[in-house]
């Protein structure tokens, strides 16, 4: 597998909505490289005709009757909000 560049890592950080200092980018790039290098051994396994498992249980969609039930009140839903206004979550402007 290909090696991973600092620019790769910056791109991934952007996708993950994370940010790192220049110094940390260096460190995390080498750590990610080492971990990916280790896990890449899965590529050597012959999986021809083997289906992927996303879940160990043989479960199907779970349906329920569409019945109204008691739910979370607005007050309790906002209880942990870092900022609120007009009975809603308040966030900085969307750029």
């Amino acid at each position, binding site marked *: 597998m290909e090696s991973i560049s600092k620019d790769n890592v910056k791109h991934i950080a952007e996708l993950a909505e*994370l*940010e790192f200092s220049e110094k940390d980018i260096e460190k995390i790039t080498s750590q990610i490289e080492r*971990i990916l290098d280790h896990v890449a051994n*899965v590529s050597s396994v012959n999986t021809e005709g*083997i*289906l992927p*498992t*996303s879940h160990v249980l043989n479960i199907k969609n779970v349906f329920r009757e569409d019945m109204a039930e008691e739910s979370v009140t607005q007050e309790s839903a906002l209880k942990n909000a*870092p900022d609120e206004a007009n009975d809603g979550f308040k966030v*900085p402007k969307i750029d």
Partner: protein
Amino acid sequence: MEIHYLTAHQLKDMLEKRQISCTEIVKSVYLRIEEVGDRLNSYVRLEKESALSRAGEVDKLISAGSDIEDFMGIPIAVKDNICTKNITTTCASRILENYIPIYNATVIDRLESRNYILTGKANMDEFAMGSSNENSYFGAVKNPWDTDRVPGGSSGGPAACVAAGEAVCSLGSDTGGSIRQPASLCGVVGFKPTYGMVSRYGLVAFASSLDQIGPLTRDVEDCAAMLNIICGYDRKDSTSINVEVPDYKSFLKADIKGMKIGVPKELMVEGIDREVKEAVYRTIKLAEDMGCIVEEISLPSLEYALSVYYIIASSEASSNLSRFDGVRYGYRNMEARTLREMYRRSRAEGFGDEVKRRIMIGTYCLSAGYYDAYYEKAQRVRTLIMGDFKKAFEKFDILISPTSPTTAFKIGEKMKDPLTMYLSDICTIPVNLAGLPAISIPAGLSGSKLPIGLQIIGNVLREDNVLKAAYSLEKAIGFTGKPGL
């Protein structure tokens, strides 16, 4: 023995005979917590006042003639990634430092219906990511057997407090060994049930296809009794299995004559301490003496289990942890001027290093161009691992291995290299990938007086075999060690 070192079933007997009150039990556990002080750091929050008031209520129920059920009035610690209504649930992360759930996890509702007593919320690796409990925002947990050493992780707090007498038992969560490995390193019993047997509703998700809640206890009997309470279908968890729940205590029989035991050679190879291996072989000999048939077996695809786990668990984590964005709950950077800046700075400041590392690995494995090579490939190899176990269980009732390749290691020893740390879970990880039930029981002490754990793995929904073997071997091993703390 001191009250704080008794098991839940011993305390239940004493409550029934009116030899002790619930208030006395709770007081003695808090006395012990105060005596231990900050030497272990096993709790992130104590609930002493409410525990004492609930103890008083339980005593009233008992004197009014109420039946004493299992865990009624018993002080239990809960890992801090399990939601407790109106009590902070932090996942040992700065990002959830002040998070107060508005609902209980299903397991908490079930315990409350039995009148359990919550001692407090137990420390852990941040978001359950780690094998040493050094990744906690609230500081590392220490091993009660040697405070220079780690208790294991991620349920380091739940394991340490049960081992040290700071709770009678505890609830943890296990994604790749997070109950069994710390149980092993702290000399207690830890059980990961079949995936889907315990509701995950209210467990803060790490890797949803692997996470499972389970008990940490002082003996197998308490473990079975706890499974009776926490197992069972829950409509609030769409991955909950709807099967009849057996009486797990009915499997506590010291009779395993004729049981077929497989020893996977892939779990007994390089990197396993000599003393750990010897303890496993000693236990195997005990099993043979009791009439078990023991054979070595090969599960070749286990060689890839660690890789498969780190790809799948990190991928699921990167998706699950996207919910922590500073909008609805949790830490927010208040200086950010735009929404995306707020997301980034809140997450960068709120998450610790290991959590960020796993989000990065997961995001990479799921990103365009790499999905097939990593995530989907890992899912295919996961199928092969499940197939190897399936084949093994056609021939064997249980599989036996070490729980952890080593006894407790020194604090700081493995923090420099994430990959070395990941190898601590080499024996436990395959079990989660296949959704199997498995237990760790103490198998003795090493020369330097550190506990060694034995892992017993059963087929899907065959908790009966696991408990039978664990109960029988526990009696045969006769481990009674307590830390000198």
